[in-house]
Every structure is written in C-alpha cells, then in structure tokens.
C-alpha cells in the first residue's frame, strides 16, 4: 500500500516536473519552429527573480513567483526582438548603413552587408539551436559574474504530508495541481482566445494570415513572451526546490527537450501524452530499483525508442493514424 502510494506520488512528481519544464519550450517550438536551447536559462531567470524578490525585497513568495514569470516574459520579449526576429539589429543597421556607406570609399562600402542584416530564426530549427545555445552560454556566465556561484534559497513552503511511515512534501503535491492548471491555461489560450486563433492561423499559413490583417510580427513576439513567461513561472515554482546556481537550467532542459521531441508539434496534447508516458516510465523504474539514476536512464531510453519508432512524436503518429483512417473511408 505504502509502496503503491509512493509510486503514485513519484508519478505525479515526474509528470509535474516534465509538464512544467516542457510547456514554454513546446509553445515556442510548436508555433514558431524555434528550438530554444536557452530555455533552461529562462527558467533560471524566473528562479533568480523570484528568489531575489523574496530575499532582497521581502516580497511574499506567491507574489514573487508572479514577478518571476513577468520578468522572464519581458526578458523573452527582448530576446525575441533582438536575437530571434532580428528586428532591432535590422532597424539599427537600416539607420546606420546609409551614412556609413556614404562616408566610406565605394569599394569598402560595397563590402558592407545589405539590409535586412539578419533573417528571423522562425522555422529554422538548426540555426535557432545554434543561436540560442550561444545565448545560453552568455546567460550562464552572465549570471555567474553578476550573482556569483550561488545565491541564498527560499525555504520550501507548506511542510510535509505524512501517511504512516511515509512522508511527502505537500508543496510537491501542489506542484502537480499547478502543472494541470498550466496545461488548462495553455489549452484555453490557444483554443478560445483571439490571440490563440491568430497564432494557430499564423502557424498554418503566415502569408495569408498577414493578408487577413494579422500582425504576424506581434503574434510571434507575443508567443515567445508567453512561452518565456511560462518558463519563468516554472523557475519560480522550483526556486524553493533546486539549488540556486547559474547552471540550474540544465536539468530542466533535458526533460523538456525529451518531452517535446516525444510529444511532437501539437503543444497541449503532445505535452500531456509525453509527460504521462515518460513520467510513468521514470516513476516506475525509480520505484522498482529505488534509484533516481535508473529512472533517468529509463526516461532517456524511452525517448530514444520513441524517436526510433515514432518520428514526428506521439501527435505525429496520431495524425498519421487519422489520415489513414480518413483515406480508408
């Protein structure tokens, strides 16, 4: 009985961790075709902002968590405008290039790059990975320079739940609930809001969406900020649990990446299914061998198998099944 309960808690724990780690990454990948390898560092921003708001400004923890999410969303917006879309460097260059080429001798001016200076990283998987990997290195080192090797952590709230000899952190149970709420929020946003409908139209056909009056630039920027905000919220939620070091994002990135790859491009359904499957695998193996390490190994093995047999992820597989059924009719 206790073992069964333990397994259930472990599953909830894994599920919540995978969902929360993956949500922001999945949105940005699913809608913009950008793989954000700095995703873990966005989580870092949320975790640090929350912690510093509590320890430095004495803000109550729940409020500080919202602050963490908002700060990360704002940070994401800046990254989108500069690195991902290149809008800011392009605008600067468009202003700088004419006077510069006027002052230079013709031959030198001919060597200057034209406008636009850079193309957006939308739907360029490999390029977006390289750019965001660079960004993640800069962010980790930046955090180390500014805040040092670690910062003081906030205490885990809510205490323990106990059942016989077994006890469990109540906060972690709350996290499982929050992960479901986050999924519900994402589903609601994309299924029912005007922004969500525009975002889906933009993924399907961005030229036509533009001709329909959709400001696609704004939609992409909003999507990146939304995904970043969720990453920041994840950092905020885990701030009391993981050690506050500049490298804390790494542990989230692996799980998030695996979940997105296994889930496929459909944001909510893919994330739920892959978190369900991967969470179950990780929890049962951890429980059976009584070792977290084996749990993680099993998780990665499951991901490799999924990739081998389900390219396009679980949702890609479902899509193929559906198409086949339609053709059979």
């Amino acid at each position, binding site marked *: 009985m206790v073992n069964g309960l333990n397994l259930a808690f472990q599953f909830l724990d894994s599920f919540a961790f995978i969902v929360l780690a993956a949500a922001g990454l999945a949105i940005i990948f699913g809608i913009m075709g950008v793989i954000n390898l700095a995703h873990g560092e966005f989580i870092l921003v949320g975790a640090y902002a929350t912690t510093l708001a509590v320890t430095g400004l004495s803000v109550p923890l729940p409020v500080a968590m919202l602050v963490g999410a908002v700060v990360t969303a704002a940070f994401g917006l800046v990254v989108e405008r500069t690195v991902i879309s290149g809008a800011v460097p392009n605008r600067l260059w468009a202003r700088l290039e004419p006077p510069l080429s006027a002052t230079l001798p013709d031959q030198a001016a001919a060597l200057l790059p034209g406008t636009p200076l850079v193309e957006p990283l939308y739907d360029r998987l490999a390029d977006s990975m390289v750019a965001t990997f660079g960004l993640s290195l800069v962010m980790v080192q930046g955090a180390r320079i500014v805040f040092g090797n670690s910062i003081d952590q906030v205490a885990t709230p809510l205490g323990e739940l106990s059942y016989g000899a077994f006890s469990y952190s109540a906060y972690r149970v709350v996290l499982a609930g929050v992960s479901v709420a986050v999924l519900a929020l994402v589903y609601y946003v994309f299924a029912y809001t005007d922004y969500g409908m*525009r975002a889906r139209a933009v993924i399907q056909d961005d*030229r036509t969406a*533009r*001709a*329909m*009056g959709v400001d696609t630039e704004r939609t992409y920027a909003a999507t990146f900020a939304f995904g970043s905000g969720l990453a920041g919220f994840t950092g905020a939620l885990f701030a009391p649990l993981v050690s506050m070091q500049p490298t804390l994002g790494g542990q989230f990135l692996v799980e998030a990446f695996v979940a997105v790859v296994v889930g496929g491009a459909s944001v909510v359904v893919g994330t739920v299914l892959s978190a369900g499957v991967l969470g179950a695998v990780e929890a049962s193996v951890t429980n059976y061998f009584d070792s977290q390490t084996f749990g993680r190994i099993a998780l990665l093995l499951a991901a490799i198998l999924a990739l081998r047999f389900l390219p396009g992820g679980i949702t890609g597989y479902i899509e193929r099944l559906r198409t086949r059924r339609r053709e059979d009719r």
Partner: protein
Amino acid sequence: MALLDLSGVTAAYDRTPVLRDVDLSVDQGEIVGVMGKNGVGKSTLLKTVVGLLAPRSGTVSYHGEDVTDLAADERARRGIGYIPQGRDVFPKLTVEQNVRMGETINEGCDEYLHDTVYEYFPVLAERADQSAGTLSGGEQQMLAIARALVANPDLLLLDEPSEGIQPSIVDQISEDMRAINDDLGTTILFVEQNLGVIRSMADRCYAMERGEVVDELAGEALADEGTIAGYLAV
C-alpha cells in the same frame, strides 16, 4: 478619383522581372477583371496590391493615398480583402474560426458582416464547426470569400475563383460576386482565365501578356468572345 491606382509598377522575384511598368485603375463600385495565360504575372499583380510583394518601382495608391510602403496587414486593416489563388483557408481551423479570422481585420470596424456572409453562402452555415480542410474545393472558395468579406472591405481581390471547381458552382460563385457588388457596393478586382466568368462578372477587363498590360476591354469588345479568347488561348 479611382479607388485603386497602379502606376508604373515593376515587380520581380529575386532577379526575374515579372511585372513591367503596369498601369491600372479601378473605380469605386466597379468589377474589373484581369485576364491572361498561365504565368503572365496575374497573381503577382494582386500580391503587389495586397502588399505581399514590394514593387521594385512604381506606386500603388488606394483611396488616393500612396500605400506602396505599407505592410500587408496594415493594408488589410484599411479595407483591402484578399482571396488568394488556391483559396488558402486555414485547414485546421473550423469554418467559423476561419470566418472569425477575417474579423481580425479592422478590429475597430463598425460592424462585421458575420451573419450576412452566411446568408450568401448557406452551405458554410451548415458546416460551421467542420474543419476547413475537409471542405470541397468549391466550399473552400466560398469560405475564402466569406473570410475576406466579413470585415466589409472596400476592395475585394479575387485570384482565379473558378480554378479547379465544377462549372455549376463556378456560375453560382460569379452570381454571388455580382450580388455582393450590387448589395454592398464592394469594389472587386479579379483575375481569371475562364472566359465565362470574365464575361459574366467583369464591367471592364485588362489583358496581360508577359508581365505587361496589353489591352483594356469594355462594352462591345468585352462582349466579343473571339477577342477574349485570343488573350486566353494557349
């Protein structure tokens, strides 16, 4: 004053020039056709009007204002509705969601023609919750028209509405477009290769050959099948 005026428009994809020095104008309330064989640049012409392709030179004015440098979404908000070749409905959104997408144009628009478009195209009302990708070609064409019409545009651009659609539906769509023009006063600029559609819809028609406007037909000339066929025959 013309509602739409193109003057000296030259456009290209990369290096190949596709439009050469095109002059064209459309008056308020008119239905104007553009005909020409495959690849003469008809769709490209509409794209420069919508703002999906920036001309190399020349100007596009709309309501007497130079809009050459405006982005497509801004032009859409000023009342240019576009129905692309091949319809390009959003396949995974429902029929109703596609129509609602059209409402993102002119967010401040006084009134949307939400119910009106379903009156013109009752089939769409029957399939409101079906995903657009599962509609037939003719139904998708109607949906693309509905999606553009719902924001009550001043100018509707229609790219080969008859392509790949059975004749009876083509006739019905031509009639619907004339009715829309009569009832709502919507100005229409359309591109076609179908002789029947050109004759039944157009008040006036331009003929294009290799990126240039080579002729303008109205009245008797437009009634003469031989003349039109000459610009369309392969």
